[in-house]
Every structure is written in structure tokens, then in C-alpha cells.
């Protein structure tokens, strides 16, 4: 019988139809020709004739012509040896689709991988988005790149960021040749009159060029101009957005309204935009600082100075210019200006100096977390690639290039990291939100904090990190997964075998995970220990159940010292009588209270200091029971009493730091000292040190004098009680009002809150590092587990054989756990070595703990050992329970 189908197939060849379609046509037409042939035979044709006739009716060319254009062609002809460009892009799309299918088909594993990547990317984006903003562009001023902060500097005393004396500022401003403008800021308090009780608001007197120099216009109304310096025109004020909203109900008609400030009438001329917060802090309003040509005082350094250099002027030129003036002032006014130089620093860099210290260290830690996450994912992908090795080998054998297969594996890891990036973004959003919950009283001193969020830069960063993650995770599986010995693999009947190189890579990945985790754990542990030390450190105060609030005795009524003294007496009497109150005192400043008072010491005993060599000490005026109220212990001598009043001999208390610095080895009590006001004091007692500023700073030398002998206008009321409550605050406010309703009470805050605020940055650093380290440890544990579990699967046959030959459970346990622990030991050793180097970076942040704290390292080793044992034990237990018969059958 004639092979019709072959005829048809050959004819159809030139159409390159899809195989299935071609088969259909061949079958259908084949039957037709067969039917026709049989008919012809029935009609009496000879076989040969019938064949010829049938074939003559199958006019191929005509049919092919008609079918062309009707049937879809399967493939364009491909030039052998190279891939056309269009098919490469199509291939990319195909790769992604394939990757997506793979992702769905192994949904559980994919989810774990995506979450792992998300964690790594999330911590990086969180830290990046906050640090990038805080360290490099915390302000919104158009001119922020050009602006500089100008300080007085005195090498002898180590002052490098000194405030500026009005006289010096005036001379700089007049004589400089490099600045478009130099503006001064004098921070102050403003008493805003209120129907019930006056409100005391922090604010700033600023040069009229202040806003123009920064480049920020008002959101409503206007800012200041040079004309506002004219007498009679300078009682104007610009409000912050916050004050405008809270105090004036966001009144759109506010511009032009009069307000009563410091018992004077001021006209509101403008409201600043929401995020304008300069000088950094809680300033609520700005009033013109009118230059007084007669005020050339050079002793009080009270101004903060900002300058806008002319365009094209370098930092060095500006510095030299102002120092030229400073040098001439030194010789002109030796009393006040000896050794006083000028230091010009970029405004942003100066404002962010605190944050910048932590930047490299934070980036290293989050990058380590990312690396651990990548190592983990790479591990999972490598095991997957190994499982698909046979697949890959066959494709390579059929002619796929290695690059093509690698691209497909990369597409998979990039797709995963893309989803990981999305998860990371969500985590980063939550992370930044968590950061922003830091107490505002503290964070307002960090410029840019209120603006923190996920912006375009952070998004771009996330995309970049996601791609990097995808490449890092895909690199090793792509390189090793495609290095296949085809013959070996196809000959092998067992479950797919990890090649030697891939299992070596897996082991190294786990080792590096362990090493990175150890570094992070060491960092976090050391910081945590340091933080713990701080919590239990002796601040020289007892903060529990102590309430502080600030009072201000302004105006004519309190111009005379006795009136202030009387107010204090009356108030202390009333507050002491309140139920639950166990101690009350007034003080000009409190430890950690963000305000400081320093004075020069002229003489101690027989030691007289030259005018320009006078040391500074922290100075505090207190009422007799203040020490009790705040909890500062008296070491020697006596505290102040009611008898230390105006008219009695001047007395003082000094602290241990003072005694150590100036009277080492000498009797403190009974010694005399003279401060720069010429007042002479007899030291009657020795106090414990208190910490005034940052907790990690050493204690300052301090002098306390009785309030009764030097009553100040601005003070803290410190109340110790059995408990603190809102009712107590109300009761104290009531007593202040009862003594004088015009006295404003502000900044009511438990002492503990000051402590917490000072700790919060360190707490944040310690906790964020701890979170990072825990994530890394968890990831490392998962990594160890997966490697050991995989090796148990691989060695099922061998383990079964061992059990059959009489190995005990203990032997198997040792075998399996040994595999994992060896990796942990190597990784741990490398990590410890790295940690010893890297924790040195932390030493600046540590208090009371060495960067190589043996206790911390011991704890870390124990934690690591425990976690790794658990990670190894779980697969080991499965191995011990293997039924040898089943295991031996396992292929």
C-alpha cells in the first residue's frame, strides 16, 4: 500500500506547521487519499493506475499555496550558531514567566525566601532612609548646602563650638569681605499673656536677615526685612506653624493681630511652614534681634551665628577672612579676646555631627544582616538548583548555552528579591514609624527627625538593594548549579546529588552566616551591656517619684532679690504641706535638664587664676532641701540651712569632681573660693558627682550656692513625693498660682523622663542592633538546620546502612550533629576574630564595658552553641528514628 502520509508530510514540510497541527492535517488528508484510492480500485483501476491518479489529484503546489497564509507557521527559520536579538528579549520575558511559575510551584519555600530577603532589605531601607535624611539633608532651607555655622574657638580651653559675643559679632559683620550676610540668633523665653495663666514659650531673637539667609519664606504673611530694625518697627513676631495651630486655632487672619509678649505688645507678621524648625529645638516664635551699636560687650558669649558666604567663596577663605578680624580683635581687646579664634563649619555637617558618628557603624550592621539573609537564600536556591541538576544537564546537552541557563536561574532569584523588596518596603515603613515614636523632647534636638519617612531616595535605594540581593543570592547557585557533569549525572540513579563544589559552597555559606551573626551578636551584646551599665550607673540623683517643673519670675515685680527670695520661701512652704510630698527644692538648673550654667573660678584657697586662665565650673543655686528632693548625697560637711541667707557669709558646696580637680589631697571643707563675680565663698560641704549632660561624659566640677544668697529668676521646682500623679501636678500648679498667679509654670516633667530621654538614643542603638543580631542569629540557625537536614536526606542510605550494621542512636547523633557543629565552630572562630576588630568601632559608644568584654563574648558563644545544637538536633532526631529497611530501599 502506498504511504500517502509520507507524501503529505513532505509537502507540508515547507510550511513549518506546529507539530500537532501538522499531524492532524496529515491524518485527515491521508484518509482522504486512501478513500479515493480504494474507490478507484472499486471502479476497476489497476493498483498502479489508482496510485497515479490519486497522486495526480493531490496537487501539492496548489494546496501548499492555499494553505500558506491560512495556517500559522510554527517557527521562523533560525540561523544556527547564534540567537537573534529579538528572541533574546523574548527569552527574558520567558525567563520571568518561568521564574514566576517556579515561584508558585514551590510556594512555601518561596515565601520563606521572600520573607528572609524582606527582612534583610527592610532593615537596610529603614536605616538608610533615616540616616540619609538625618546625616545629609535634615533641613528644608534652599540655601542649606551653602550655609555655615560660625563659632568662637579657644584652643586653651578646648572650646571649639563656642557661642559668640555681641561685640565680636558686630565687628565680624562689619569687617568681613566674604559673606553675603552673617546673622545672629539669641535663644530666649517669651511669656505669652493668657487669660488664665501666662504661658512661657521658647523662641529666638534673630537678625532681620535670618530668614532670607536661610532662604525660607513665610507660609503666611511675611518674614523680617532690614526696615524692621528701625525703632518702633521691631515689635513684630513670626510664629511657628505649631504655635499658630495650638495657640491661635490656625486663624487665617492672624497676620496683623497683636499679642502680648514679655509684657510688650507685638504684631504677628507671619507664620512659618510646618517643617521649619531652626535653630534646632522647640523654638515657637522669632522676633527681630535689633543690633545695638553701643553694645560691644565681649564677655558674654550668647549668640549663635550663621553665615551665607558669597558664591565662589570657599570654606577656607571664609575662615581666613573672619580669623583675620579675630586676630586684630585679640590685640585690641586682650582682656576678653585673648586666644579667641573663629571656626567656620558647614551648617549641615555641624548640625548632624552626632548622627554622623553612628553612620558607618549602623550601615555595617545592617549590611551584615543583609549578607546573612543573602547567604541563607543562596543556600536554599543552591539546594533547589541541585535538585534540578538533571533538568539543567539535559538542557545543556540539548544545546542550551550555560549563559542561557544561568540567566534563567538569575531571573528566579531576581524575581524573588523583587518580592522581597516589597516586603522590605513594608517592614521599613513600620521600622521608620517605630523610630519616630522616640520621645519628642529628645528627638526635637535631632534636625530632620520629624521628616523621616520613606521617600523617593529610599525607594530607589530599596530597588538597588533588591537587585543587589537578587544578584548576591543568585550568583553562587547560577555559577555552581550550571557546572554539571552530564555523564556522571545521567549515569547516577540516586536522588540528585550535590556536586562537590556545590556542597562546599553550601558549607561556606553557612560558615559565613555564622561568622556574620557572631560579629553582630558581639556588637549588640557589648552595646547592650554598656547600656545596662548605664541604667545602673550612679548619676548622683534618685529619679524615681521626682517631679520637676520650670518657673520664671519675670517683670518688674521680681526685679529685687528679696522679692524672688520671698516667692521661693512661700512656694516651698505651700508645696511641702501637700499630701504625699516628702521633699521640695528650687534650683537654677537640674542634672540632665538641658540647661547649663557655668562660671569661671578666679581663686581657690591660695591659688589665684590669671584672667585668661580661669577654669570653668558648673554653677547651681539651690534651696536647702533641694539635695533631699533630687537625691544627691552629701559626702562630707553640711548642706545649706535656712540660716544661709542674704547678709550671712557666702557659703558653697562643691562636688567630688571639683575636689579632685582643684584640691587633690587637700581638706575641702573650710576652703575658700572666689568666682568671677568677685564673690567669696566658704566651702561647707562635699557632694557626690551628678551627671549634667550626656551620660557617658565624665562628671563636671561643680559649685552650689544657696538660693537665698543668689536668687535667680528662672528655676526648676523639684518635688519628691510618695507617688507622682496628675492630681499632684495640678495641686502644685494651684500652689504656684496661689503665691502669684502671674508666674508661668512650664515643662512639667518627671525627673525619670529626663533620664529616659538621655538614654533613648543609646537604648535605640542597643535595641536596633539587638534586633538585627537576633534576625541574623535566627537566619543563621535556619541556615544550619537546612544544611544539616539536607545532608541527612542525602545520607539516608548511608545512615540506614550504619544502623543496620549496629550503629547506636548515639553514634548517629554524633555523626549528624558533628556535621553541623563543625561548620558552626569554623564560622564562630572567624566571627569572633572579626568581632574583636569591629567592636573597636563601638568603643566610642561604650560606657563601663571594654570593647572586648569577655563576659559578652562568653554569653554569645553559649547562645550560638545552644541555637546551633538545636538546629542540628532536629534533623539528627529524624536520622535516629530512621527505619534501616526503608532507608536502605531509599534511592
Amino acid at each position, binding site marked *: 500500500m502506498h504511504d500517502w502520509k509520507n507524501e503529505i508530510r513532505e509537502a507540508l514540510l515547507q510550511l513549518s506547521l506546529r507539530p500537532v497541527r501538522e499531524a492532524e*492535517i496529515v491524518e*485527515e488528508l491521508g*484518509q482522504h487519499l486512501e478513500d479515493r484510492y480504494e474507490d478507484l480500485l472499486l471502479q476497476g483501476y489497476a493498483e498502479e493506475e489508482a496510485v497515479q491518479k490519486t497522486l495526480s489529484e493531490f496537487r501539492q503546489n496548489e*494546496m501548499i499555496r*492555499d494553505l500558506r497564509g*491560512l*495556517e500559522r507557521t510554527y517557527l521562523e527559520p533560525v540561523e544556527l550558531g547564534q540567537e537573534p536579538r529579538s528572541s533574546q528579549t523574548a527569552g527574558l520575558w520567558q525567563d520571568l514567566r518561568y521564574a514566576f511559575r517556579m515561584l508558585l510551584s514551590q510556594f512555601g519555600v518561596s515565601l520563606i525566601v521572600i520573607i528572609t530577603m524582606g527582612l534583610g532589605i527592610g532593615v537596610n531601607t529603614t536605616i538608610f532612609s533615616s540616616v540619609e535624611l538625618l546625616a545629609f539633608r535634615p533641613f528644608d532651607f534652599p540655601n542649606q548646602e551653602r550655609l555655615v555655622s560660625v563659632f568662637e574657638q579657644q584652643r586653651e580651653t578646648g572650646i571649639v563650638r563656642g557661642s559668640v559675643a555681641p561685640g565680636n559679632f558686630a565687628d565680624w559683620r562689619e569687617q568681613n569681605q566674604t559673606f553675603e550676610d552673617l546673622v545672629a540668633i539669641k535663644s530666649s523665653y517669651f511669656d505669652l499673656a493668657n487669660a488664665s495663666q501666662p504661658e512661657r514659650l521658647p523662641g529666638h531673637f534673630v537678625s532681620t536677615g535670618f530668614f532670607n539667609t536661610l532662604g525660607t519664606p513665610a507660609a503666611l504673611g511675611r518674614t523680617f526685612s532690614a526696615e524692621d530694625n528701625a525703632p518702633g518697627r521691631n515689635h513684630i513676631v513670626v510664629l511657628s506653624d505649631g504655635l499658630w495651630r495650638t495657640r491661635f486655632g490656625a486663624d487665617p487672619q492672624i497676620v496683623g493681630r497683636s499679642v502680648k509678649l514679655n509684657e510688650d505688645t507685638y504684631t504677628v507678621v507671619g507664620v512659618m511652614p510646618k517643617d521649619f524648625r531652626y535653630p534646632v529645638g522647640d523654638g515657637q516664635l522669632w522676633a527681630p534681634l535689633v543690633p545695638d551699636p553701643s553694645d560691644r560687650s565681649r564677655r558674654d558669649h550668647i549668640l549663635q551665628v550663621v553665615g551665607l558666604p558669597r558664591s565662589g567663596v570657599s570654606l577656607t577663605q571664609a575662615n581666613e577672612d573672619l580669623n583675620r578680624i579675630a586676630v586684630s580683635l585679640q590685640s585690641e581687646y586682650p582682656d576678653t579676646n585673648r586666644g579667641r579664634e573663629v571656626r567656620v563649619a558647614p551648617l549641615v555637617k555641624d548640625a548632624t555631627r552626632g548622627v554622623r558618628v553612628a553612620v558607618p557603624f549602623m550601615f555595617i550592621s545592617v549590611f551584615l544582616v543583609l549578607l546573612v539573609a543573602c547567604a541563607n537564600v543562596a543556600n536554599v536556591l543552591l539546594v533547589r538548583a541541585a535538585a534540578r541538576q538533571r533538568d539543567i544537564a539535559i538542557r545543556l546537552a540539548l544545546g542550551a548555552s550555560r549563559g542561557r541557563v544561568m540567566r534563567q536561574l538569575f531571573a528566579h532569584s531576581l524575581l524573588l528579591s523583587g518580592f522581597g523588596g516589597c516586603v522590605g518596603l513594608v517592614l521599613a515603613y513600620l521600622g521608620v514609624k517605630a523610630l519616630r515614636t522616640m520621645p519628642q523632647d529628645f528627638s526635637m534636638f535631632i534636625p530632620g527627625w520629624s521628616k523621616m519617612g520613606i521617600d523617593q531616595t529610599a525607594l530607589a535605594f530599596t530597588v538597588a538593594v533588591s537587585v543587589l540581593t537578587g544578584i548576591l543570592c543568585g550568583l553562587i547557585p547560577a555559577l555552581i548549579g550550571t557546572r554539571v557533569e552530564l555523564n556522571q549525572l545521567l549515569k547516577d540513579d540516586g536522588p540528585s546529588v550535590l556536586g562537590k563544589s556545590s556542597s562546599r559552597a553550601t558549607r561556606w555559606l553557612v560558615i559565613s552566616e555564622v561568622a556574620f551573626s557572631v560579629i553582630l551578636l558581639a556588637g549588640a551584646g557589648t552595646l547592650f551591656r554598656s547600656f545596662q551599665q548605664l541604667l545602673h550607673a550612679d548619676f548622683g540623683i534618685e529619679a524615681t517619684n521626682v517631679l520637676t517643673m520650670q518657673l520664671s519670675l519675670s517683670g518688674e515685680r521680681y526685679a529685687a532679690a528679696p522679692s524672688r527670695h520671698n516667692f521661693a520661701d512661700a512656694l516651698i512652704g505651700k508645696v511641702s504641706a501637700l499630701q504625699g510630698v516628702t521633699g521640695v527644692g528650687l534650683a537654677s538648673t537640674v542634672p540632665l535638664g538641658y540647661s547649663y550654667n557655668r562660671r569661671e573660678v578666679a581663686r581657690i584657697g591660695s591659688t589665684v587664676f590669671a584672667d585668661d586662665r580661669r577654669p570653668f565650673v558648673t554653677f547651681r543655686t539651690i534651696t536647702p532641701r533641694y539635695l533631699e528632693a533630687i537625691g544627691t548625697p552629701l559626702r562630707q560637711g553640711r548642706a545649706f540651712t535656712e540660716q544661709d541667707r542674704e547678709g550671712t557669709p557666702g557659703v558653697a558646696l562643691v562636688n567630688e569632681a571639683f575636689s579632685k580637680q582643684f584640691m587633690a589631697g587637700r581638706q575641702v571643707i573650710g576652703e575658700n573660693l572666689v568666682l568671677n563675680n568677685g564673690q567669696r565663698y566658704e566651702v561647707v560641704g562635699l557632694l557626690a558627682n551628678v551627671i549634667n549632660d550626656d551620660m557617658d561624659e565624665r562628671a563636671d566640677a561643680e559649685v552650689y550656692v544657696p538660693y537665698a544668697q543668689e536668687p535667680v529668676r528662672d528655676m526648676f521646682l523639684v518635688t519628691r513625693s510618695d507617688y507622682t500623679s496628675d492630681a499632684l501636678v495640678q495641686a502644685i500648679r494651684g500652689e504656684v498660682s496661689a503665691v502669684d498667679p502671674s508666674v508661668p509654670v512650664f515643662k512639667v516633667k518627671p525627673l525619670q523622663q529626663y533620664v529616659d530621654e538621655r538614654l533613648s538614643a543609646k537604648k535605640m542603638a542597643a535595641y536596633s542592633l539587638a534586633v538585627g543580631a537576633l534576625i541574623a542569629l535566627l537566619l543563621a540557625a535556619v541556615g544550619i538546620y537546612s544544611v544539616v537536614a539536607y545532608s541527612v536526606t542525602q545520607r539516608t542510605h548511608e545512615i540506614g546502612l550504619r544502623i543496620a550494621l549496629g550503629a547506636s542512636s548515639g553514634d548517629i547523633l554524633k555523626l549528624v550533629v558533628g556535621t553541623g557543629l563543625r561548620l558552626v565552630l569554623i564560622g564562630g572562630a572567624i566571627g569572633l576574630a572579626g568581632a574583636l576588630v569591629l567592636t573597636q568601632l563601638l568603643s566610642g559608644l561604650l560606657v563601663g564595658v571594654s570593647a572586648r568584654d569577655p563576659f559578652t563574648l562568653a554569653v554569645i558563644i553559649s547562645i550560638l552553641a545552644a541555637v546551633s545544637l538545636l538546629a542540628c538536633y532536629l534533623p539528627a532526631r529524624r536520622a535516629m528514628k530512621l527505619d534501616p529497611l526503608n532507608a536502605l530501599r531509599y534511592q
Partner: protein
Amino acid sequence: MAKVYMAIPHMKTPSILDREVKRGSAEMLILALIEDRPRHGYEIAKLIEQRSDGVLQFHVASLYPLLYRLEKRGLIQGHWVERPSQRRRRFYKLTKAGQEILKEHRRTWKAFFAALDRVAGINPA
């Protein structure tokens, strides 16, 4: 009796009208033949030859491209049918759209023959 081949086999440059008329009539024949029940390709070709007493002939080379074209246009639908002890065959049945087109064809041809009759006295019946 001269045989008429459907479609466009031997003429080197068939006129468009010739081609259209042949294709149009061939289309109508196929649609009409499967109006009552589905039929396979050989059956259709055979029926055309039988019913036209051999005047109209449809060969494999022209029949199947036309069938595939009709199928692609949605006028007919082919499906494989397997019967015991027989080879499986592809049967074509008329679709809804095919029925509409068939009606349209019939109308056109009727009007065409009526016009021919009026002009040249050709009575198709």
C-alpha cells in the same frame, strides 16, 4: 459532458470574477452539504461529484484549504470522531454563523440566476 473543476486549478491567470464565482459556489456547496448533518471531507467531495453527476469535482488539494478557511472563519466546525472498528475521522458541522452565510449565498445565487434567466432565458430549474 464537460467537467467543471471547482476553484482555480489549471488557469494560469484566472480572472478575479472567475475565481470569486468558483470559490463562492464551492463554499455554498460545502455549507449546503453539511446543513443536515456533519460530514467528513471525502464524503463531501464524493457527494458533490455524485449529485452533480460528475459535472462538479472537488479534489483534495482544493477541498481542504477551503474547509480550513471556512473553519477559521467560524462557519463550520471540525471535530474528530472515533467509531468502533473504524479509523477516526474529522467531521465538519455547520455553525450558526455558517447557517446565516448559507442563507445569504442562496439568496444571492437565486437573484443571480433569476437575472440570467430574464436576460438570456436560462432557466435553472
